[in-house]
């Protein structure tokens, strides 16, 4: 083996890589916010509605959970492109991640809702709360605690699979790394550093989540 490691060009590109890492974090975080809201909606639809709307929600969840994330990305990229809908790489990744997050989270939320006893709603209503108040003040806060760790995992997952974005031309952390690597041929060095950056991002997310949980859930 006579590969000579050259770390200097990688170090010089570090600011660009870190900037791309922020983009990764941003798209993952945004897809989580949207994913939580939509996932909540999907789980409520699946629990309370009938007919085509429910069928659509179920299909969403099934497809998001049971097909490769890569295919989901390609669908929103090349699939829609083939029928003339051209989205920017950023949007393709955001939509694909949101689609995936919402599907997984919907299933988590459903489990969470089942774990909160109906009697909590009864007690809330008996105090004169509206159904909406009972849900937002009593049920959902308890559900959020139950799904907190699954949600954290999903956020980590969103960061990691956002790396697929480079395949649709998105210059997030992996895309940027690929760009530099192919320019300089220091492929191993670049991807090694990038792996470290991903690792650190994930550790920061997990650390922050654990700190936040101590503030949020004192019971």
């Amino acid at each position, binding site marked *: 083996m006579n590969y000579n490691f050259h770390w200097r060009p990688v170090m010089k590109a570090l600011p660009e890589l870190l900037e791309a890492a922020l983009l990764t974090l941003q798209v993952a975080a945004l897809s989580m916010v949207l994913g939580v809201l939509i996932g909540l909606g999907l789980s409520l639809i699946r629990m309370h509605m009938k007919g085509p709307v429910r069928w659509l929600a179920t299909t969403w969840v099934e497809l998001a959970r049971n097909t490769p994330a890569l295919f989901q990305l390609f669908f929103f990229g090349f699939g829609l492109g083939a029928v003339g809908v051209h989205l920017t790489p950023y949007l393709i990744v955001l939509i694909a991640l949101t689609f995936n997050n919402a599907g997984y989270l919907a299933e988590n939320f459903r489990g969470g809702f089942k774990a909160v*006893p109906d*009697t*909590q709603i*009864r*007690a*809330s*209503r*008996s*105090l*004169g*709360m*509206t159904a909406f*108040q009972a849900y937002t*003040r*009593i049920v959902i*806060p*308890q559900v959020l*605690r139950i799904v907190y760790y699954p949600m954290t995992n999903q956020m980590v997952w969103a960061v990691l699979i956002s790396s697929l974005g480079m395949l649709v031309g998105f210059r997030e952390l992996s895309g940027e790394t690929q760009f530099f690597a192919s320019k300089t041929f220091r492929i191993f060095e670049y991807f090694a550093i990038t792996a470290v950056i991903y690792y650190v991002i994930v550790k920061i997310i997990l650390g922050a989540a654990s700190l936040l949980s101590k503030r949020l*859930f*004192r*019971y």
Partner: protein
Amino acid sequence: MIEIRNLHKYFGSLHVLKGIDLDVQKGEVLSVIGASGSGKSTLLYCINALEEIQDGSVIVDGTDVHAKGTDVNALRQKMGMVFQQWNSFPHLTALENVALAPKIVRKMSKSDAKEIAAQQLKHVGLGDKLDSYPSALSGGQQQRLAIARALAMEPSYMLFDEATSALDPELVGEVLDTMRLLAEEGMTMICVTHEMGFAREVSDRVAFFHQGQMEEISPPEEFFTNPKSEHLQKFLAKVK
């Protein structure tokens, strides 16, 4: 005043309440006893519109509970309800448990809501637990918390559905004492209970439910010493 007229309740084809007629006067304490499945809980749920009814009427202070257009949320504020399962809200402290509904239902200011919450928690003997979460409270304390939570809405009526049935025997007393206190303060109460001692000492009248019908209603003395219904005689013989 609560006026129940010819109340019929079905769950599907199951006829659970078969024409109940009952008046509860202001300040009265009514205990309701009867075998499991006789419709006691359902009666309470029909009174505060947690269940719909199929025939008859329930009138509370002149308002038809089940009429279209009745604001049930406003109505429920008049009627505090305490369940067999404590249903404390696990994610809120004792103070927050009690202050929430005054704040979001009665639209009180945060500080007023907290004040009334603290006051009611003291009232039920939980003045030193304001910042505790339910998980740190015993069953008896959680049930008293539930009572304080209902009282913070300043209801005119309190409905108790076997408030002590799920408690360890040594914790029953503290909850009954709280209920007794309310009765002495003049609260109008309907208490579904298995506690014959409580029914006898505290209530003005006791009602016996059997298979969806109110078979007997009379003052406790007469109810326990001279029951007329055959089913009640059997029931009392069993619980003694």
